[in-house]
């Protein structure tokens, strides 16, 4: 038996091609059965996420099975002959290394992301339940999970936040711990502030207040997020109770000045206040950050932190790949 992998991902295929091969999470088992039949293979697993669809197979002749599978898939999806450029093909040990890279997050759009680990596990469980795995793919997937865990624990591949929103949420947690007692106010109903606030809510933030020059827009956003709309003239009063302020208005000058915060310090009993200013020009005057209990972060600072985390992850790739090669060399997997 020989191992093979045929796949396409965000780097090799545009979304209009990827979506044709996408498989819903409840259909993974059935897809694995169909896959094995299509390639005349004895074992098959289908992995399908928003960024990739990959077919893992064990067949008597890997190259022959690859040609057969590709031809039948192209025919089934009525793709032209040029569509083959979107696929990548891996056989034997290459396929094993590739799966380990996928499980470790090295092949993901956001390097080191953790979600893929669970998605691959789900795909394998579905194939296992459908009875389309045997000694080759069982050993391959079980070992790949072990290697993936080792890569993630022994390197910094998943350390730090790589997006502005996640950096802001991590900082909020560093200040307030769990966010279940924290209240958040959004100033300006921009997309970026909505995403950041949504991340805070998903991590447990208690309530959200939305203030915008257009009250209708504030109400709409508040409704979508399960929060409360606040009239733009009243945001200073809301400042007395909130813990996190996310500001992204289109104002041409600073909106929040030191005096605004000084006024509410006593009423807040000097509790910590976290300002996230993602507006350009900035909404919050830098002087506000000089107040003792205030932590002020603007878009550049957040972007720099995210960028540094991305760079740190990039520097870990070689180390991760070294672990994968070393671990696979020890395992002597069937089909490779």
């Amino acid at each position, binding site marked *: 038996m020989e191992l093979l992998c045929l796949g396409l991902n965000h780097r090799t295929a545009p979304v209009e091609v990827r979506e044709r091969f996408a498989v819903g999470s409840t259909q993974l088992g059935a897809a694995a059965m169909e896959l094995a039949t299509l390639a005349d293979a004895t074992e098959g697993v289908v992995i399908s996420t928003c960024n990739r669809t990959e077919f893992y197979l064990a067949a008597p002749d890997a190259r022959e099975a690859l040609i057969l599978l590709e031809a039948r898939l192209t025919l089934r999806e009525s793709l032209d002959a040029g569509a083959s450029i979107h696929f990548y093909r891996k056989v034997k040990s290459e396929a094993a290394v590739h799966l380990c890279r996928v499980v470790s997050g090295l092949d993901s759009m956001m390097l080191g992301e953790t979600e893929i680990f669970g998605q691959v596990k789900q795909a394998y469980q579905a194939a296992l339940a459908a009875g389309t795995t045997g000694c080759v793919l069982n050993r391959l997937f079980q070992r790949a999970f072990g290697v993936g865990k080792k890569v993630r624990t022994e390197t910094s591949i998943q350390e730090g936040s790589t997006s502005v929103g996640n950096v802001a949420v991590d*900082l909020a*947690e*560093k200040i307030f*711990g769990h966010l279940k007692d924290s209240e958040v106010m959004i100033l300006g109903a921009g997309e970026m502030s909505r995403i950041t606030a949504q991340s805070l809510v998903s991590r447990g933030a208690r309530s959200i207040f939305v203030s915008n020059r257009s009250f209708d827009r504030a109400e709409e956003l508040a409704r979508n997020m399960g929060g409360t709309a606040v009239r733009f003239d009243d945001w200073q009063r809301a400042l007395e109770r909130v813990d996190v302020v996310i500001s992204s208005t289109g104002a041409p000058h600073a909106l929040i000045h030191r005096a605004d915060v000084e006024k509410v310090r*006593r009423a807040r009993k*000097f509790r*910590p206040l976290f300002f996230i200013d993602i507006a350009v020009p900035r909404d919050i005057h830098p002087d506000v950050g000089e107040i*003792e209990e205030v932590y002020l972060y603007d878009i550049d600072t957040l972007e720099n932190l995210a960028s540094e985390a991305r760079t740190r992850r990039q520097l870990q790739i070689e180390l991760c790949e070294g672990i994968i090669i070393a671990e696979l060399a020890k395992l002597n997997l069937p089909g490779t």
Partner: protein
Amino acid sequence: MDRWFLLIATLLAAIGGTWGMISVHRGTRSHWTVVWMVAVLLCQLGFLSIRGQLRAACPLQDLGEMLVFLAWSLTLFYLLIGPAYRISLLGVFSAPLVFVLQAAALISGMLTTSPKRDLSPNMFHSLHSATSVLAYGALALAGVAGIMFLVLDRQLKVHHLKSGLFRNLPPAHELLVSLERLLWLGTGLLTLGIIAGFLMPRTTTSVHSHLIVAMAVWVGYTGLLAVKTVRGLTGRKLALSAVAMFILSLVVFARV
């Protein structure tokens, strides 16, 4: 034998602290800090039980014993609070203080070589000594939590977020909550100690001045908690006050 226990406890605190700091510097969490501190506590208990048997009373009769009792109290409160609130780093910050206190107790002259048996032990005297030193343990740990908050606050303020220390420090809010609870606990125990102090027989003027200084310390901590509760206080001011007041309150030891 008692000194051997103390020596081992001091070495364990030094090793635990150094180990923890190396881990923090590497950016990893030291899971062994709690284990080292448990070993320190056991050795401290060995020392205190031997001294207690020799004295046939609470081993708080000389400055050396008081320093060890204080280190024991600090270790005990860390073990009660640190793991429960998932602030293992508190141990890394506490271990150096435990080391310093015990090393000071090991200096020649601090511990009576042949402790005399207390022939007429007084319950209130023992209660005063024990609760006061336990209070100091809690207040010392509050100071340690204060230092940790000040470090974290500074890093958050200047956006210096890359160090291993930053990654390992617990959230600012949790540090402040622990700090405040320790202040309440320490002040409560100090209150008991002072009440027992007034009930114990007082013969010398030094005992009077000792109680007056202890009262001043109590007023200071009670005032701090009152301001925090009624008016509110920034985290930085609360932490700085906890550190400064603990250092100042050590004056009481000089008045023993």
